[in-house]
């Protein structure tokens, strides 16, 4: 950002800057109306309401930190937090590693084939959560599902399994579907990043007798590090916000075994109209995500030096 400061031949006289500022804000105005009105104000309202007992059709009552105390003692919240953490801890590394592997295979292919695969892995994202979810719900169905049929055919299971209705399996089914809808974007990013790795470095390493694995870890991996970092951040944010899959597949059941924080916020705020409590959990989630992003950026900043 700072490197661009030598812009403008007239120097940075105050009067010129004021003139520039006025015209700049005229250009920014349309965006700012929407950004302030429908992003910044709601963010501030979210924080404010989290200190109130708030519901439909009556004035909010100030309760201080009560919502946060309730949250801390709420067993269902803790269960939802645990599930969310499991989803994040399982999904983020597998999505990142898998998409890096796929990208490193397909980026060396010819242009057509590369586009083809990139497109294939993006299909579940584009198809839309609801359409993807309903077909998986059918495939996981106890009586009519393909998964049970195939499982019995190959002898992996003896009797039908109620995949989505069983506390032990439901969360894993959700993680699998989340996985298939999460790798499209990372693959696109990795294919582009690997394509930008300096080919002369790779050739030099190969001439020196480096194995493929050595070339990968010593040369390609450090160069795609900024991309890896970005992928870690966006996948973490998306996994923390896992909602639609839960709402459509299990509604948090059986027995809250698949509640995530986002689903629980939805349940409390939009089913029971406990806006204050919902917002407190929202603030908590936002803080956790912000911390994760900050830590990942700090770690990467150190690696780059």
């Amino acid at each position, binding site marked *: 950002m700072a490197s661009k400061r030598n812009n403008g031949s007239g120097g940075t006289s105050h009067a010129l800057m004021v003139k520039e500022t006025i015209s700049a804000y005229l250009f920014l105005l349309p*965006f700012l109306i929407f950004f302030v009105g*429908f*992003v910044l104000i*709601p963010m501030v309202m979210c924080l404010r309401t989290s200190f109130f007992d708030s519901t439909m059709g009556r004035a909010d009552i100030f309760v201080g930190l009560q919502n946060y105390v309730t949250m801390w003692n709420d067993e269902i919240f803790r269960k939802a937090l645990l599930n969310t953490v499991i989803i994040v801890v399982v999904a983020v590394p597998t999505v990142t590693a898998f998409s890096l592997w*796929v990208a490193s295979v397909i980026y060396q292919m010819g242009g057509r084939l590369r586009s083809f695969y990139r497109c294939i892995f993006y299909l579940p994202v584009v198809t839309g*959560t609801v359409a993807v979810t309903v077909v998986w719900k059918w495939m996981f169905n106890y009586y009519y599902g393909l998964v049970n049929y195939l499982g019995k055919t190959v002898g992996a299971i003896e009797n039908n399994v109620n995949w989505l209705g069983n506390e032990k399996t439901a969360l894993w089914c959700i993680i699998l579907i989340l996985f298939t809808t999460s790798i499209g974007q990372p693959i696109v990013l990795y294919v582009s990043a690997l394509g930008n790795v300096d080919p002369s470095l790779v050739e030099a390493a190969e001439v020196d007798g480096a194995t*493929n694995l050595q070339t990968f870890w010593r040369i390609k991996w450090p160069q795609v590090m900024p991309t890896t970092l970005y992928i870690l951040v966006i996948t973490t944010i998306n996994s923390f916000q896992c909602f639609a899959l839960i709402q459509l597949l299990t509604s948090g059941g059986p027995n809250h075994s698949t509640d995530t924080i986002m689903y629980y916020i939805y349940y409390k705020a939009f089913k029971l109209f406990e806006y204050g409590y919902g917002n407190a959990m929202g603030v908590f989630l936002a803080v956790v995500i912000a911390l994760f*992003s900050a830590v990942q950026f700090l770690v990467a900043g150190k690696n780059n030096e």
Partner: protein
Amino acid sequence: MNSSVRKRTPYRIVSAVIMALLAIFFVFPLYWIFTGSVKTAAAINAPAPQWFPMEPTMTNYNKLFSNPALLWLFNTIFIAVVAMAITCLTSAMAGYVLAKKRFYGRALLFTLIVCAMALPKQVILIPLLREMSALRLHDTLWAVILPTVGWPFGVFLMKQFSEGIPTEMLEAARIDGSGEARTFVSIVLPMVKPGIGALAIFTFITVWNDYFMQLIMLNSNTKLTISLGLAQLQAEMATDFGLIMAGASVAAIPILTVFICFQKYFTQGITMGAVKG
């Protein structure tokens, strides 16, 4: 060199095979949606799955269109197109200014934009719902459109694209006496066209699939989007898989077509929109 080529070959064959299997795994759900939508109830409830629809039928689609599915589709297209058009215009203007002008408050504004992008969008849905109710926009299509336009990803993307405009060209236009608005229309817009293409397609697909926002903002049967309509069918007729797959096909086909036609722009948008370092 020879040894490294020989070493690479078995790995390449194995990975090509795995890749093909994965492709089948990723396409299969779509295949199952489309074939399921034309299967008879008997074929769907048969103990062994029918891999290919033997006696294709349109019954499921007839049943689907006895619901206002066309209206749901129209609502979705309206939301996506309007949000896309406004986002492209406001983002192109704001992105250009952030990339090419020095002004008071620029650093602060840019920081706010990047921070907002790192926060979970869904968290602000509770206050947004109350805001929309206060504005009497709840349960209208605008309740979905307006917050989408405010999301700053587009501005970030257009800033990235606008960095590529040569400053000399802007200077030259200024010296020729071109006003700010004319410079923007005649110089900036043509140069960031690929960026606008990428943003347009990206916004269209994101809005089309933003199920959570639609779920919170829209209630009446005549205001639903195709995703919401499909979710409603699924909730009401959970085991009529033929009907639900017909709904899923109708929801998926338009957006898949758009994606496949404009894939190049879309890929570019994802790559340029990455916040790095």
